[in-house]
Each structure stands twice: as structure tokens, then as C-alpha cells.
């Protein structure tokens, strides 16, 4: 038995196929979900992938969060369903208030596409258990709305509760508060980050390393051992 991991496609999603491929490489079974689906096809976890959704009109993720598929997703995520949001998926999760804070345009106003060094700060979430805390990894980053912001109280809470999951190393590429690249919810089942682990799962592409693969092996282990 293996785990079934759903990947939602919104109008404008770019990385749904890459994410499905990463899930398959890790040994799990990807399940395609459509933004108009009203149920999650009994998947064991869900990834909201990168790209754009509804043209990112209004704000990135602001319209996608009201998609039909988000209704069961929000309900089940609050009950413990593991959910990973990558880039636009992270933006959707913050707009849906599953994760705190939000993303602003990069402070320099340029689109960035680069290999980004990160430090894994929390290796105890559903999506990061195959890393070790403090591990340094290289993951591609590609966005224009990547500047993570939250009010000081929220930042203090995230820091004191160890809920900063990933931090940018060497350079802060977009002006994010506290160099935050990704965060987790309190329970550790919902994680969001701006860099793209699904683009770093094979030696031939991305950073030439497979530093993103542990996201998908972490969740597989958690689900299969559950």
C-alpha cells in the first residue's frame, strides 16, 4: 500500500505535472485534483502547487481560496490532513488563513529565478521529517510576489514556537521578514514555502541535486507508517 497525494490544478497552475512527478519519484501515487472538484477523492495529503491562479487578480491566491476544492480542503486541513503549499500554493494557504502572514511583491520589484540556499529550521513537520534541523539545502526560487510579511506579534509567535520552517541563507532574495522562506501551522500538518522543492528531485534538472525530494519522502513515510 502506498499513499495517495492529491495535486490541485487551478486555472494558471504551472507546476502540477512536476509536482505529480516528484510524488511518483518518492514512491507515492499522485492524484490529479481540479479546482472545481467538490471532494478530495479520499487522498491522504494534498499539494497546492506553484504557478498562478485566476491570473493572480486582486492578490495572489485571493480568488483561488474560494474555489470549490478549497472547501473540503480547509475543513480537512483543520482536522489534520497534511497540506503543502508551494509558491502560489503558499499564497493561497495564507489567503485562506491556514497559515499566518502574507506575501507582498519582492522589495526590488523584479521577478527572481535562482537556486536559493535555505536552512531547514523545523524538521518535525509532516513535510520535513526526512531533513535534519539546521540542514542547508539548495532549492530553486522563482516568483515576483515572494516577500513574506506578518505583524511583529505574529513573527514573535512563529519564532518562539519554532514555526519558521525554512529560512533564506546568504541573501534575502525578496525582503522577507526575518529571512522567512516557509512556515508551518501549529500542528505541523500544513506547510507553505516560496521555493520549489518539486524542481529539485532529479540530478539532471534544477540545482543538480535532489534536495527537494525529502519533502515527498517525508510525507510518504508519515502516511505509510501511520
Amino acid at each position, binding site marked *: 500500500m502506498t499513499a495517495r497525494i492529491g495535486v490541485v490544478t487551478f486555472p494558471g497552475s504551472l507546476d502540477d505535472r512536476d509536482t505529480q512527478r516528484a510524488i511518483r519519484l518518492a514512491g507515492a501515487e499522485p492524484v490529479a485534483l481540479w479546482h472545481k472538484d467538490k471532494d478530495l477523492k479520499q487522498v491522504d495529503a494534498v499539494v497546492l502547487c506553484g504557478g498562478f491562479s485566476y491570473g493572480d487578480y486582486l492578490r495572489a491566491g485571493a480568488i483561488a481560496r474560494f474555489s470549490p476544492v478549497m472547501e473540503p480542503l480547509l475543513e480537512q486541513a483543520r482536522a489534520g490532513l497534511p497540506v503543502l503549499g508551494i509558491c502560489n500554493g503558499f499564497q493561497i494557504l495564507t489567503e485562506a488563513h491556514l497559515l499566518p502572514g502574507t506575501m507582498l511583491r519582492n522589495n526590488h*520589484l523584479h521577478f527572481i529565478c535562482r537556486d536559493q540556499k535555505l536552512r531547514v529550521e523545523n524538521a518535525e513537520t509532516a513535510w520535513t521529517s526526512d531533513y535534519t534541523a539546521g540542514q542547508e539545502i539548495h532549492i530553486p526560487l522563482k516568483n515576483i510576489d515572494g516577500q513574506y510579511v506578518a505583524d511583529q506579534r505574529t513573527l514573535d509567535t512563529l519564532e518562539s514556537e519554532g514555526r519558521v520552517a525554512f529560512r533564506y541563507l546568504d541573501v534575502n532574495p525578496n525582503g522577507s521578514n526575518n529571512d522567512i522562506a516557509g512556515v508551518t501551522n501549529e500542528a505541523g500538518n500544513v506547510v507553505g514555502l516560496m521555493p520549489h522543492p518539486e524542481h529539485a528531485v532529479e540530478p539532471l534538472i534544477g540545482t543538480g541535486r535532489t534536495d527537494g525530494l525529502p519533502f515527498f519522502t517525508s510525507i510518504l513515510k508519515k502516511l505509510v507508517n501511520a
Partner: protein
Amino acid sequence: MARVVVDVMLKPEILDPQGQAVQRALPRLGFDGISDVRQGKRFELEVDGPVDEAALARIHDLAESFLANTVIEDFTVRVEEVAEAVK
């Protein structure tokens, strides 16, 4: 029919790089004496029926939950007098 205007602005403490880029362009265009620019969004809602307290309350909810992200943005709601269309 009445019009309700919702203005959405980044909170004062939030950096507005787009507004800064506009501000920096001003001297090059010969506009002096403008020390700061903040960029926001304006929504014009054409409302069917009367704009009474209940309608405004619903629009307030709409602005709070959807038009603005209150993590980073403030908003105001106001009724705008619509001048008779010029025939």
C-alpha cells in the same frame, strides 16, 4: 442604483515598493516637491437597490474578507453620489 467605493491601501507600516518606484520617477519627469507616493486599489461597486445600513454592512464584510487582506491592508467604504448620466 448607487455606487459604493471601497479604497484599499497598504497599512502605513508596510513597505510599498511600487509606490516608491513611482515616487523615484517623479523628478525625472519634472515633478518636484512630492516626498512620498503610496499606491492602492479602488473598487467601485454598483449596488442594486437602496444602500441602507444592511447593504453597507454586507459590503464592509466583503471588503474585509475579500477585497482587502487585513494582514497588510486597510480599507474604507463610502457611498458615492452618482451624477445623472449626461444624455
